[in-house]
């Protein structure tokens, strides 16, 4: 179990060394991603400048949701954001190089890059989280701390699963990056807001189809000790790690099917 992780660190370390070769470009990208993500949060503040509450949610609570979603999204983006260039790997045949190495294909694709320059968004998420926690007066107990610690990895796994499933599409289309982005970036955007503000159709989509609602909404209800405005069963508050695991299994299965298709249809 440890060896693949050690190798992952080595491979990712190599990518980071590569990126640092172009220092100026790296610093600019980092600063850019930090600034752009603030514009993103500005949108939240603009909404609350016009309305005092968003459904049942105050600005601090939405900031809390926003921050947790941002952090999970940013960590995913760091680790596997390069999957949006995966169609290119299929097209130029570089995926074949991975297939003649004695490692799993998904593992190698994930370990093939690391977008350190997207660290800016994670930093912004942490700042917003700091602001939200300072303003919110959460009644911390071991359960809530545990939830906060677990929900971010669970969120990363959920986001990652959606990413991987999106990348699988390119085995058939050898392109289609934009379609995938609608789910990955679009889903991430929607997970930043409480899902009870959306219409039924969109809400169901975020719970059952692309389960990004589980990234923040349900765990946040628990941490903030809020009654679910939707009146959904309380056990859902603890469901995100399980949903994450299930999503990962589904993503893994789809990946295997996609690679099998690729190998029998021949890139």
């Amino acid at each position, binding site marked *: 179990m440890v060896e693949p992780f*050690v*190798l992952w660190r*080595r*491979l990712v370390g*190599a990518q980071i*060394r*590569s*990126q640092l*070769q*172009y220092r100026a470009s790296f610093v600019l990208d980092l600063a850019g991603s930090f600034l752009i993500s603030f514009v993103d949060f500005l949108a939240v503040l603009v909404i609350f400048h016009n309305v005092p509450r968003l459904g049942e949610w105050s600005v601090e609570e939405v900031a809390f949701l926003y921050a947790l979603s941002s952090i999970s999204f940013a960590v995913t983006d760091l680790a596997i954001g390069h999957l949006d260039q995966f169609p290119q790997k299929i097209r*130029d*045949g*570089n995926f*074949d*190089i991975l*297939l*003649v*190495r*004695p*490692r*799993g294909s998904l593992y190698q694709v994930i370990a093939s890059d690391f977008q350190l320059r997207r660290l800016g968004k994670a930093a912004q998420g942490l700042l917003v989280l700091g602001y939200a926690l300072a303003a919110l007066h959460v009644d911390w107990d071991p359960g809530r701390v545990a939830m906060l610690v677990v929900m971010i990895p669970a969120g990363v796994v959920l986001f990652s699963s959606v990413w991987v499933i999106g990348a699988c599409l390119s085995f058939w289309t050898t392109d289609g990056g934009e379609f995938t982005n609608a789910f990955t970036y679009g889903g991430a955007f929607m997970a930043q807001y409480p899902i009870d503000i959306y219409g039924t159709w969109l809400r169901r989509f975020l719970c059952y189809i692309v389960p990004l609602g589980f990234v923040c909404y349900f765990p946040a209800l628990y941490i903030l000790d809020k009654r679910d405005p939707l009146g959904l069963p309380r056990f859902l508050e603890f469901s995100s790690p399980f949903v994450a695991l299930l999503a990962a299994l589904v993503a893994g299965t789809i990946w295997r099917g996609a690679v*099998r298709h690729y*190998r*029998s*249809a*021949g890139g």
Partner: protein
Amino acid sequence: MIDVEHLSKSFVVRRGKLRRQRHVVDAVADLSFRVERGELLGYLGPNGAGKSTTIKMLTGILVPSSGRVTVAGLDPSRRRIELARRIGAMFGQRVQLWWDLPLIDSFELLRHIYKVPADRYQASLARFREVLDLDPFLHTPVRQLSLGQRIRGELTASLLHEPELLFLDEPTIGLDVVAKQRVRDFLVEINRERGVTVLLTTHDLGDIERLCDRLLVIDHGRLIWDGRIPDLKERYGADRMLIVDLERPAPPLEIEGATVERVDGPRQWLRFRGPAAELTARVAASARLVDLQIAEPDIEEIVRRIYSNPAI
């Protein structure tokens, strides 16, 4: 080492803009051959003949449509990962090295990907550094290497885990004469000294002629030649060329058993078949010879003939 029986691979291609129709294309059709351990085999064919498709099936990248493949005792498509430890592959036009990092870093990463024990790794690397003269650029980022240097790096990368079988796709493409020769010498070395079986896909007939004992030729997905190179010459182009330099320019010589192909001043090219001794004697009897040489049939010429008329 490789056992291929009735191997076929067909692809479904969709053509047309509005009403897309499905067409089934046979990239490889009913291919059968065997490769013994320690062979250095050439695999030749025009673009789109099915070479890459075959290599992809042998390395486990593609699953065959029908037929049977065994490589190193394994079914490649089912046991891809296991097979990957035992084979090496180098695609001349793709980069498996880490572009922005020093060459040595790529070797280190591959050592961990393949789980090569440290002592074995050090020993192999030491040998490659010497044979391929890697030291001058071992710490240079791959993107700054010349093509020849990069290919030497790629070769090392595909051999560090000591594979029994090496697949090479166009290893000498784009190299200058010196670099080409270096790669060829190296391939002979690993084949002879270390018994690595090599399957060489190439357009470069020089590679084939200097390296391979045996040649497979594929066209339109079908095997059209499997045999030794001298036999190929015998069968498709037994004609040799006698090139004579006469004392002074002369009209084309009329010699029994030979036809003059070309005249250039005092030099004449005579195409002939059979032993050269008698012919030379006859030429010497009818004209004053200054010098002569015999040219063996050119494999390029032969292959062109096979491609254009496979039914011979």
